[in-house]
């Protein structure tokens, strides 16, 4: 997908004034994050499992070449094929060729963020192959020509009414000409339409939540069962996975599955977790005859061995965005590229460049909720801070901001001066509008007050002054 991350500020303004989006986002807190809290509380071992999950991913990354080679040997021994793709372009080309060799006209696709990352659908369409997204949320946004706004709930920005309008507009020609109002009717209509697509598809393309070195298995986690139909009915199954998905053993998978579903949706377990190992066997009655795994790097290997390596532990559960006050206010599209929320603010600058996505790691209050819920304990605010430092080092910030920061630093390093100036500012601001409790406009701060009020200083002086007087509440 084409990035609009550089236009983040404009995207945010649009998102804040989008009534449908704000309505959808208001449901996030009661939905995912509350259910995650309950699931974590039900399992006394949850925190210990998070530690173990972090350690498994760290171990896998430290031995990544070894486990990838082990995985490959297993797949090849079973008659499957492994393809190595250093770049997004390589992955697109490989998958396009495999689809052509299979004589594919339509492809059943199971939602894959890596496929979004490499813009696979555009490439397949250019080759005259129709990719059909089969995850309900991903199908809805494909019909609407939109990118996903969340990594596990791609249509979370839409209301039921918007979905109803979309279906009426696209399913009418298939004979479904009634506008539906109930959720279960919408789901049933999509099921009926997509069932035929599954049957017609020549190739199934899925992502992978994990790859298991011990057995050469690729793992798919879904609630709908769409990945399973995609990897069972078509003659060819292509798995697209990035290098950091590989883990050593089935036991490691058990640990990661126990934190994944609970962190993502608050379920004890997703409805379907499927382990696919090679093509169908000689005595199998169904399943694909050809099995390909495309392993993508796309800049990830450059992060290994650096202070940013921890981002590669991510298992794409979405908990960080479900708990992020910034994501909760602006939704996923405003981030402008494939991965939204805190993990997007960390991944996107790596994958598409700091010049393009530099605003994203700045869109954080560092409240720390993302890190506190991350199942593999990625220090997301710390990684965002790294990007801010690099941005500063590389002089990507406007000079006014650089000078402002330099002035701030000068004052902050001199406590007496700092206290004198903040005390003075406090008294001056108080003259203007303590009675109202907040300012709706201030000289030189129009950018801040355009979309919110600045609280007025309250009686008692600065925090430092109150602390010194012992009001340590």
């Amino acid at each position, binding site marked *: 997908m084409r990035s609009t991350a550089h236009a983040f500020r404009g995207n945010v303004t649009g998102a804040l004034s989008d009534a449908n989006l704000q309505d959808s986002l208001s449901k996030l807190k009661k939905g995912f994050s509350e259910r995650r809290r309950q699931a974590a509380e039900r399992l006394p071992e949850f925190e210990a499992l998070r530690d173990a999950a972090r350690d498994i991913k760290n171990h896998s990354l430290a031995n990544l070449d070894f486990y990838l080679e082990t995985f490959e040997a297993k797949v090849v021994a079973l008659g499957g094929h492994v393809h190595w793709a250093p770049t997004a372009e390589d992955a697109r080309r490989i998958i396009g060729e495999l689809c052509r060799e299979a004589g594919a006209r339509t492809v059943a696709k199971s939602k894959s963020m890596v496929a979004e990352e490499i813009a696979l659908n555009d490439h397949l369409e250019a080759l005259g192959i129709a990719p059909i997204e089969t995850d309900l949320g991903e199908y809805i946004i494909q019909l609407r020509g939109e990118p996903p706004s969340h990594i596990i709930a791609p249509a*979370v920005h839409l209301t039921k009414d918007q979905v109803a309008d979309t279906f009426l507009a696209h399913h009418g020609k298939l004979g479904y000409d009634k506008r539906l109002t109930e959720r279960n009717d919408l*789901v049933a209509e999509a099921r009926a339409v997509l069932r035929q697509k599954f049957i017609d598809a020549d190739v199934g393309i899925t992502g992978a939540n994990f790859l298991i070195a011990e057995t050469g298995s690729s793992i798919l986690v879904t609630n*709908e069962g769409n990945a399973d139909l995609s990897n069972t009915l078509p003659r060819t199954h292509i798995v697209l996975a990035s290098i950091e998905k590989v883990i050593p053993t089935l036991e490691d998978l058990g640990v990661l599955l126990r934190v994944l579903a609970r962190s993502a949706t608050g379920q004890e377990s997703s409805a379907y977790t499927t382990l696919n190992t090679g093509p169908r066997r000689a005595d199998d009655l169904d399943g694909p005859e050809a099995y390909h795994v495309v392993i993508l790097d796309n800049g990830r290997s450059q992060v290994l061995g650096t202070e940013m390596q921890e981002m590669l532990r991510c298992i794409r559960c979405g908990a960080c965005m479900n708990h992020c006050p910034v994501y909760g206010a602006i939704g996923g599209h405003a981030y402008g590229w494939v991965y939204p929320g805190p993990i997007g603010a960390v991944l996107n600058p790596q994958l598409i460049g700091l010049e393009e996505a530099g605003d994203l790691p700045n869109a954080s209050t560092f409240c720390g909720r993302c890190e506190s819920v991350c199942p593999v304990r990625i220090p997301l605010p710390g990684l965002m801070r790294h990007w801010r430092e690099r941005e500063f080092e590389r002089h990507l910030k406007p000079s006014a901001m650089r000078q402002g920061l330099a002035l701030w630093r000068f004052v902050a390093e001199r406590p007496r001066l700092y206290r004198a100036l903040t005390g003075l500012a406090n008294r001056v601001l108080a003259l203007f509008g303590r009675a109202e409790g907040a300012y709706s406009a201030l000289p030189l701060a129009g950018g801040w007050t355009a979309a919110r009020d600045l609280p007025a200083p309250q009686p008692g002086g600065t925090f430092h002054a109150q602390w010194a007087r012992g009001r340590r509440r």
Partner: protein
Amino acid sequence: MSARGQMLDAIRRSLKRGPLTGPARDAAEARLAAPVRGPVPKRADLDHAGQVALFCQWAETNNASVARVGAGEVPAEIAGWLKRNNLPARAAMAPSAELDRYDWASQKLLELRRGIAVPDDQVAITGAFAAIAETGTLVMASGPGHPVTLNLLPETHVVVLREQDIVGGYETVWERLRAAYGRGAMPRTVNTITGPSRTGDIEQTIELGAHGPRRMHIVVVRP
């Protein structure tokens, strides 16, 4: 250089080493040969009767229905359940030796076809390789006795699960898979299934029957 060599090289350069050798390689190989268990939830650390009860409880929480019967009652239970739910007395059934043990001929009205599921099938009947008490999860292993399409295509899935196949957690399932297929080997597809298919993609509200079965009935068979 091949794309493969290029990628492995890039990984090794970043990790500041060549191919994994010496003690580090020995340690990784040992980890593959003798997998390390993580923290296993105590929830399912029960005697077998407790595990069976826990499985049934979670399966129902996951929107499946459960019946516990003796081996002689399995066909009657299934025929009765289909009738009570106004479902057709016609099913695609897995061609497994395990299901041959039951006296299907006793149910004259139950029409069974053995083999894969086709799009028109309304009901599937299968066995299960194992089941996990910790979360109420079924484990299906593909093979000549268990086509994968039976788990997915029909709107109704009836699963015949032997009590002795219910275990505590994933770890015992992995051991049983290794015992059945060999170390490091797997059937083409292992489906672990926790209740009927569902989606929360419209306004985060769960609806059942997204792509896979809309309803699931688990018949737990006493030994």
